[in-house]
């Protein structure tokens, strides 16, 4: 439960309320994270927040943080040279080994693009290990689209299909309009031979999981990353429970069939 100190070595403002921090260990570093895992980031004297790994490069942790309250406001206010505490990594990761040789479908909504970003990095690093790669991204508005530059780059590549849609467009928007599930219907995949990774607001994930399964992707090949309130991240505080699951250690990444019946019950 003791954080290790990291220093902010780079800061990028992604959106008016979202920043990406690159963190380097001051002293001892945390164990190497797996993609899909999260860290508890600690703002001195304010508190901790679970934040997904958005990247891991040369021992540096990359985290994208949206300001929604006391802790995330404080974390997002950090500038180069500031220190942040890190505990982790925690939880289950995106299991890319099960996707070997298969098509990979990644569906992200809003800030959900941050936790799936390492999947895209891994796909490019070992491109021949996987079949077709499809990334479907949904955002509320064009202005709320995360990692715009990177999306542009990925879109320019021939070895991945990137589709972006927004709930409500601005006059200059030339892309799709509508919910991300609409993109699932026409994603160029061989459904039976596809593994899907989904991250975004819970409602979006439920709809996305249903439409992915409707396309013919086996339900057990659909992975979701869930969010719950978390205080300890080690199964001691009880806050993250969803039925029998401690989302901090049995999740955040869970196979859809395991949580489907739980998410069907309102306020479970």
């Amino acid at each position, binding site marked *: 439960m003791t954080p290790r100190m990291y220093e902010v070595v780079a800061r990028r403002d992604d959106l008016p309320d979202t920043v990406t921090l690159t963190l380097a260990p001051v002293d001892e570093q945390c164990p190497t994270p797996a993609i899909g895992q999260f860290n508890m980031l600690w703002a001195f004297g304010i508190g901790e927040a679970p934040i997904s790994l958005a990247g891991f490069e040369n021992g540096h942790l990359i985290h994208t943080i949206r300001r929604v309250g006391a802790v995330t406001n404080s974390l997002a206010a950090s500038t180069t040279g500031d220190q942040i505490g890190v505990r982790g990594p925690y939880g289950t990761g995106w299991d890319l080994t099960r996707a070997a040789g298969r098509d990979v479908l990644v569906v992200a909504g809003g800030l959900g693009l941050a936790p799936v970003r390492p999947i895209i990095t891994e796909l490019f690093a070992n491109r021949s290990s996987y079949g077709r790669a499809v990334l479907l991204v949904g955002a509320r508005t064009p202005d709320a689209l995360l990692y715009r530059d990177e999306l542009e780059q990925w879109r320019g590549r021939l070895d991945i299909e990137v589709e972006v849609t927004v709930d409500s467009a601005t006059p200059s928007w030339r892309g799709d309009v509508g919910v991300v599930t609409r993109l699932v219907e026409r994603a160029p995949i061989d459904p039976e031979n596809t593994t899907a990774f989904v991250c975004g607001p819970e409602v979006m994930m439920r709809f996305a999981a249903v439409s992915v399964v409707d396309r013919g992707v086996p339900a057990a090949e659909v992975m979701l990353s869930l969010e719950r309130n978390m205080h300890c991240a080690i199964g001691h505080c009880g*806050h993250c429970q969803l039925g029998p699951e401690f989302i901090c250690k049995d999740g955040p990444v869970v196979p859809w069939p395991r949580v489907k019946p739980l998410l069907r019950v309102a306020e479970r």
Partner: protein
Amino acid sequence: MEGLNTVGLVEVLTLDGLDDVVRVLRDQGRKVIGPIVRDGVITHDEFDSVSELPHGWTEDQDGGRYRLVPTGTDEVFGFSSPSTSWKRYLYPERTLLIRARRDNGTVEVVQPQPDAPAVAFFGIRSCDLVALGILDRVFLDREATDPTYAARRSDVFIVAAACNRPGKTCFCASMDTGPTPRSGFDLSVRELHGDGRHEFLVEAGSERGTELLATIASRRATTADLDTAQALHGRAAASMGRRMDPQDPPLAALDPDHPRWDDVANRCLACGNCTMVCPTCFCNATEDSTNLTGTEAERWRVWDSCFSIDFSHLHGGSVRSTVKSRYRQWLLHKLVTWHDQFDVSGCVGCGRCITWCPVGIDLTAEITALATPQQSAGRKGVPS
């Protein structure tokens, strides 16, 4: 023989002999904690001699009701599970997790040494002893061991006490957790009282228990003593105020949309009393604070309750915003999902949540109602 591990040493002590046990434990440098009467209830605290135990008192407990009542005898253990559980001695209400100092932007973090005084639990009941074993599964998890809990738990000397007079809210017999301690103790005491007799059958359950017992003036237990103890056990098991059958029907099949959840939600105040008094409830929150200049910070872990709306807070709203969903979370966790998580029930049948619920909600009655298919659950609004 039920509750008696006759492999260990079994002796019969007088009241003075029992006091000698306390004295030896104190001589070992232990804080001896046991049941005492204070502020109109039986609670636990440090004591020096058995004369401070609740001689002649019993508890009249029922849904939302607790009264101390004289037994008219000089029984030392004539009550059942006291108002407070023992968890606070292993898992304190507040624990300092870290202390930190910030100097010119550099942060130094210190994890304090766990504060683990040597203690003995004297007179812990069977249900509460089983509850400690349940908490062990949470805080002694091999992958995430809590340092304070581990330090305190490893050395605690346990003198258990069998119940002769279960309360009206007790249902340990139906949960298979009592009324006689079966394991997990160093010594276990059964008071033999009546017909002019006042003695204590003491069984050792560990090597250090055997060693301690061997130093106390006592006599070897006879078959007659064991028979008396067995009869007392049988009588206690048969006089439980309540019962819950955890098998029939399978609780996992409880309907999350049963109308009874709305019904209990209309009565529940979401005060969280039930979770505070429960010997197995473990949920907590972490709280950070700084000094005024922002140079020193602390993080504390404090008990929390799934009945608070903030418990499931997420940006955009709580997952469980209704009392119905929070009561359901509590009950289903205790009785159903605890099994999935820890291979054991989260309820030991101590009855405290029934007694200390200000509106007398009784989980055994709720389960009975919830286990009745909703079409036939026609008793809406009436707590049984």
